[in-house]
């Protein structure tokens, strides 16, 4: 254990001043910036459209930037939808799912990765196979079960079907098997229980993977449309993503500016979360000293 927590430091080959002056570095940066901006173009369109007045959204000639900047769309979205309630519901749903899924998935993944038991491979394949049936096919049976449990239009019903998922188990299992076995075997020789090994050795080392999975789970559920839509027949339980569909007018006409404003507010929490977490998970890798 002690040997492992000791940082395996990498000798700094470059001093900071040398690095900032490196011309190749900046060339690389410039090239990467161009690629990123190109890939970001649709996102930039979304952001800028949110500030366009309705008459400019589909105007010709098209323009990336609004001719006349406006906050009207943001005002409109708050009067069109119970935004606060929807956001809170989204946090409840996506947050709840993420919390449970991280716990349950990591436990199961640990068993599959480390507790060599007969049939673990088969179990893994069965779990992965469950990903292969499209959600559209099981939606109605799932809905029936939740309905039989009396959970329609409740958070329990919204969250329970997602409280563990095959994707997360598979993801964490793949990560756990890449962790060196000497980590836990040393502890095992010392007589540590599996639970202790899981909690104090595997989990701390798996923080980046857990965070990655946490982000995925959160984003996927935050953006999920079909399940909250079908499940929450009562609008009070709707999520922000399902709520935004209400903006669609007759004939499938969407007030795009308002929609983009809504979407922008909806992705803000996700973007901030990722920005914070992506730093954390790089740091945490460095601080465990595993690498």
């Amino acid at each position, binding site marked *: 254990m002690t040997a492992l927590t000791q940082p395996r430091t990498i000798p700094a080959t470059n001093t900071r001043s040398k690095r900032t002056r490196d011309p190749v570095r900046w060339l690389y940066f410039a090239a990467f910036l161009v690629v990123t901006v190109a890939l970001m*173009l649709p996102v930039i369109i979304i952001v800028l*459209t949110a500030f366009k007045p309705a008459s400019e959204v589909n105007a010709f000639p098209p323009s*990336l930037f609004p001719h006349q900047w406006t906050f009207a769309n943001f005002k409109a979205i708050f009067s069109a939808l119970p935004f606060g309630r929807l956001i809170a519901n989204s946090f409840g749903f996506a947050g709840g799912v993420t919390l449970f899924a991280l716990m349950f998935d990591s436990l199961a993944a640990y068993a599959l990765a480390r507790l060599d038991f007969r049939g673990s491979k088969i179990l893994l394949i069965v779990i992965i196979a469950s990903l292969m049936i499209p959600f559209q096919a*099981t939606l*109605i049976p799932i809905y029936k079960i939740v309905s039989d449990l009396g959970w329609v239009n409740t958070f329990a019903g919204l969250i329970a079907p997602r409280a563990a998922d095959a994707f997360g188990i598979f993801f964490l299992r793949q990560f756990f098997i890449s962790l060196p076995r000497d980590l836990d075997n040393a502890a095992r020789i010392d007589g540590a229980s599996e639970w202790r090994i899981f909690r104090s050795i595997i989990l701390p080392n798996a923080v980046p993977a857990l965070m*990655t999975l946490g982000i995925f789970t959160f984003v996927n559920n935050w953006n999920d449309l079909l399940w909250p839509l079908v499940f929450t027949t009562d609008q009070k339980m709707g999520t922000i993503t399902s709520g935004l569909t209400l903006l669609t007018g007759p004939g499938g006409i969407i007030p795009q500016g308002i929609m983009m404003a809504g979407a922008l507010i909806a992705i803000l929490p996700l973007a901030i979360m990722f920005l914070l977490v992506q730093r954390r998970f790089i740091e945490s890798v460095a601080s465990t000293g595993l690498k």
Partner: protein
Amino acid sequence: MTTQQQLQRRRPYRPPGQLGGRTPLNGTFKRRATIVGFLAPALIVLAAFVGWPMISALQLSFTDASGFGTPRFVGFDNYVRIFTNPNIVRAMGNTALYAVLFTPVAIIVALVLALMLNSDRLPFRGFFRSSLFLPFIVSLAVAAFAWSYLLDPQIGLLNYWLQTAGIRIGNVLQDPVLAMPTVVLVAVWKSFGFYMVIFLAGLQDIPKSLYEAAQLDGANGWKRFVHVTFPMLSNTMTFVVIVALIAALQAFDQIYVLTGGGPYRSTETIVMQIYQSGFKDLDLGFASALSYVLLIVTLLLSLVQFLFFGRRGEDTTS
């Protein structure tokens, strides 16, 4: 320490005596209880909300269920209907084409960007990492708007910009040949951030010392990738390939919002047909049967992948 030795060290370590082997671990009651304890929460959820619905769907696939009234048993009728319906057969071809285009492109784009983002030479990595993840977090309806704003043949931004340069890209989403590559492109754009982050997490897991050792051995960038990065990423790669393949074979909503399956059903996929028959035609039995056909095809393809990538991947495990 050389690369080879490092790799060696990461091979499964089997301690001698009673702690390492399989048999004693399986033996005791306590041991079994521990395993059950770890697995139970997830398995209960999966059994209730995935396993049971899958069994229900399997039952439905042999009936004419519509969601209303009492379903009638129809044997293999639904399965026969699948393979005699030209629209479904065409959707299968489209899905296969989509998967063949999407899976490698998405993986390569994600891997290349992840490798670049992982390089010490790139300043402001946090900024890039976050920016490139954005396409994954915007919701589909919004992304569809942005793409149609770009691609619209008459009033689209891209066409307008290119027009001044004398180029016309035309109506790509309504072209029977170009529609599929276009929806693949948009789908890759939407999801590469996801796979990129998985690769990043995997790359974090490769000890830096391996690279340094390789560098000392005189390996150049490409060699380092082939001999260090790629083998060390095999667990991640197995995962990404299978997940991307499953996603590709279940392609639905990103295509649905862009082309609705057109022009002339040329971008219609299997899941689109499942949705259509289940939710529009209220033919749940048929939709379930089609889902099972898809499941079986996906399973077979994944097993092939698993064997192919897994052979090397499992080296680092038991």
